[in-house]
């Protein structure tokens, strides 16, 4: 990759983390004023992010290590307990933690019956259930606010909404591929309708260049040569931390990648680390980065 890209990425990453941290601290101080914190467990990662954004640290999160790795932009959590895998959270442990509320992804709601024996269960439907993830994230954030906090406006969610509002359709439309790289350079994961990155992309006014079929989470694994079907498209590589650099270097040996018009024209951008399974905070940060990047790129 070209060095400037890397530098740009680092700067963006730093601003993103600082921004998120400041934002969350603000939320925390607001929370401190209200009554005793509700005890909430999050099996859904998008829900966990939303909770932290409004100043509620979950007492337990499923696959905590995985969550920390994917959501590096969030500040450290103290005392949060690992619940085991997202798919099979440890019921027994959860029961003994005596939560007031459990947030469950609606795409794996099979455990709902068991969890309802422990505490009230709320489904988080941002991912995997169709519809626009940003809209879903917005209404999910509202529901969290209504149910768990007594904060008066302007609340954390309202602020995110305002930030999103500012960049609505800010960029002139042009096609963009959203890619997640794989360890074999023969394939890439392309994100489209139904995924959070696509939702942010459309929000700032860009178009998704991938029109083919995708799975329930809004992505598909395709041969790298399929990207040539839209030669005019720009490319955004969704950053997965240290793995991305290695995979990019592997891709350079791929003749299709090398002859991609976007690469020659400098229209390949590597995003700051983002979580594709995040909530409104991830969506806002990513949308702002998109608006910023494509604003400069014109």
């Amino acid at each position, binding site marked *: 990759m070209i060095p400037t890209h890397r530098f740009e990425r680092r700067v963006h990453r730093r601003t993103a983390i600082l921004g998120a941290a400041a934002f969350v601290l603000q939320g925390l101080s607001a929370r401190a004023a209200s009554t005793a914190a509700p005890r909430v467990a999050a099996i859904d990662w998008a829900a966990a992010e939303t909770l932290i954004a409004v100043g509620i640290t979950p007492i337990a999160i499923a696959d905590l290590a995985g969550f920390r790795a994917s959501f590096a932009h969030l500040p450290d959590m103290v005392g949060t307990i690992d619940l085991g895998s997202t798919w099979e959270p440890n019921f027994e442990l959860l029961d*003994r933690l005596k939560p007031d509320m459990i947030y469950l992804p609606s795409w794996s709601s099979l455990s709902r019956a*068991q969890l309802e024996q422990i505490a009230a269960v709320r489904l988080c439907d941002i991912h995997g259930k169709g519809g626009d993830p940003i809209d879903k994230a917005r209404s999910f954030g509202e529901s969290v606010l209504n149910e768990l906090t007594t904060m008066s406006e302007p609340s954390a969610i309202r602020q995110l909404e305002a930030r999103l509002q500012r960049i609505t359709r800010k960029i002139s439309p042009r096609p963009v591929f959203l890619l997640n790289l794989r360890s074999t350079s023969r394939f890439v994961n392309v994100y489209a309708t139904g995924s959070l990155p696509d939702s942010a992309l459309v929000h700032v006014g860009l178009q998704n260049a991938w029109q*083919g079929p995708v799975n329930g989470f809004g992505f598909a694994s395709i041969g790298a040569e399929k990207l040539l079907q839209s030669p005019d498209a720009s490319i955004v590589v969704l950053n997965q931390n240290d793995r991305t650099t290695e995979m990019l270097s592997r891709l350079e040996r791929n003749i299709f990648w090398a002859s991609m018009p976007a690469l020659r024209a400098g229209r390949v951008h590597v995003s700051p680390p983002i979580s594709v399974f995040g909530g409104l905070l991830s969506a806002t940060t990513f949308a702002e980065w998109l608006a910023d990047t494509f604003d400069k790129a014109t």
Partner: protein
Amino acid sequence: MAQTVERRPRISPSLPFSVLFVGLLSLMLAAINLQRVLPPSEWLDALSSKQPGSLQELLFAWAALPRLAVAFLCGTALSLSGLLFQQSLRNPLAEPTTLGTSAGAQAALLASLVWAPGLLGVGQGPIAIFGAALATATVFGICSRAGRSPISIILAGLVVNLTLGTICAIIILLYPEQSEDLAQWQTGRLEQTGWMPALCLGLCLLTGWAITAFLCRSLRLLEMEDAVVISLGMKPAWLRGISLATAIIVAGAVVATIGTIGFIGLAVPALARALGARDLRVLVLWAPLLGGLILVLADQIVQMPVFLNGQFPTGTFASILGAPVLLVLLSGTRSRTLRSVSRPMTSSRLLIGPHHLLGIILITLALLAVSLALGRGPSGWEWSTDIELIKRWRLMRVEASLSAGILLGISGVLIQRVTANPMASPEVMGISAGATIGAIALLFVSTTFTSGDLFVACAIGSLLVTSAIVILARRSNFAPDRIILIGIAVSTIIGAIGAFVIAMGGPTRGLLLTWFSGSTHRVTQDQAMLVAAVAILAMVVVPLFGRSLEVLELGEDNARALGLPVSATRGAIILYSAISTAAATIIVGPASFVGLLAPHMVRQIGIHRPLPQIFASAFAGGALMLVADWLGRTLIFPWQMPAGLLTALIGGPLFLYSMRQRR
């Protein structure tokens, strides 16, 4: 000299005609697909120019054509590998996927993907070939004492496959992100982005084929007994070693290039034989050719736009296509592939006495107490006396896994005795796979199903598959080999479909992964009661089969002479095992292999009469599941290890060890 009188091998015309037909068909489809990439008038330009000009030319010369080449080379390589395995082992069922070769390559690739990604830069080929060789060597190492009988090799291969699959599943559960790419390898996708893989594979294949052609005359001798071969002055061990090494390297190279493609290695040589090629000299030339063309055909069909926009993996499609071919072949010929093995001589015969019963009761109680009370909490290990907690989260899991183990233990013995085949089991026969297909079908019909729906779907699936097996096997009077082959075919199709759904990712991925891993995590009280009821019923009903089983053991003719309706009895017992298996599969998934392991453990101890064997196996299965469930809950707390995976992981090596010990 024998050579001078030897005639040139005769080729019946049906083989060249079939090859020509498949070749023309795949050429036609390839032409249709290629002209969608680039108009035919520009094909020559695209090929002759050193630097591709337009994007279309690039796609044509660097994606479409290499893919065509890789498809042909992979088909050829797999057929050659299968042929070599079959010839040198004198076993028509031997091929890279039944001997653990492909699974070994795959596991090695996954392990390096997760723990040493730098190694992949060195090249996937050596890693895959290393894994393939290791797994195959394990299979042979285990069978070396058992005299390499065809059945023991296939059985060892099966268990090695299962154990490696389990290891992969555990890696996937623990490292979901890194192992996502494995899914692509498992489905065998052929997309290419350059000529390098085709070139390497081609070179490998050419070498392998040259060695085979060179050794062809000597390899034919392996069709005879080893003593005869030695008396002719040949060294069968050397011959076998060279041809097996060639087969392994060729198959490993295929896995490294595109992943696992099942069935070609098994079905294509069988097809070529059915088309009249009996002589190895004919087969060596025509079977690889046929295999290459068949895979090209499958790959071109998959690339048609009507097929999921060309995203359907070729490997999955080839399996779905190949399995029925195998079934048709089976129903046409009266195969004598796996003769039912005479019961092992009973060196130790254990008679069950009262003190045994007392011991069993004590062990059961101890196991129950430990698995209910001993566990891990937020602050470490503890002996829990919180009855409420135990009743709420542990009781039904204990109940369900115990019952499921009992059911699988019973069905295992029933099926092994009825088919007179020690490698039969509900898992091997595809009954569990039937339950899986029910579950997958449900996934596509509804996204908001309850566990009750799941049970019904699984029961319907396994009953359908069992009925299919019963109907297909009826014609051959439930010949053991036929039943096993049908089971392997069914399991392979269903496994391929499952791998494809997992590879698509999305919300169903996790559900299927847990299903295949056999987790007792979500068992409800109702489910537990249901399975327990089925298990208790089985304990009551099964003694009724006791006499029939003893009579069946005397051999078919004797049984008939004693007035036993042999076919009807066999059908009834198999159907009953299917229902039991369906109930157990809901709890522990399709791959626990308790139904295979428990009866073997019991036989190992020396219990041989039908009824004691059934009850001992029920106890062994129940205990195995109970321990697995407890370990699964505590070993990596707060994470959980699915019980089905654990039984396979513990039981697999144990089984292989006991196989090796047995004379």
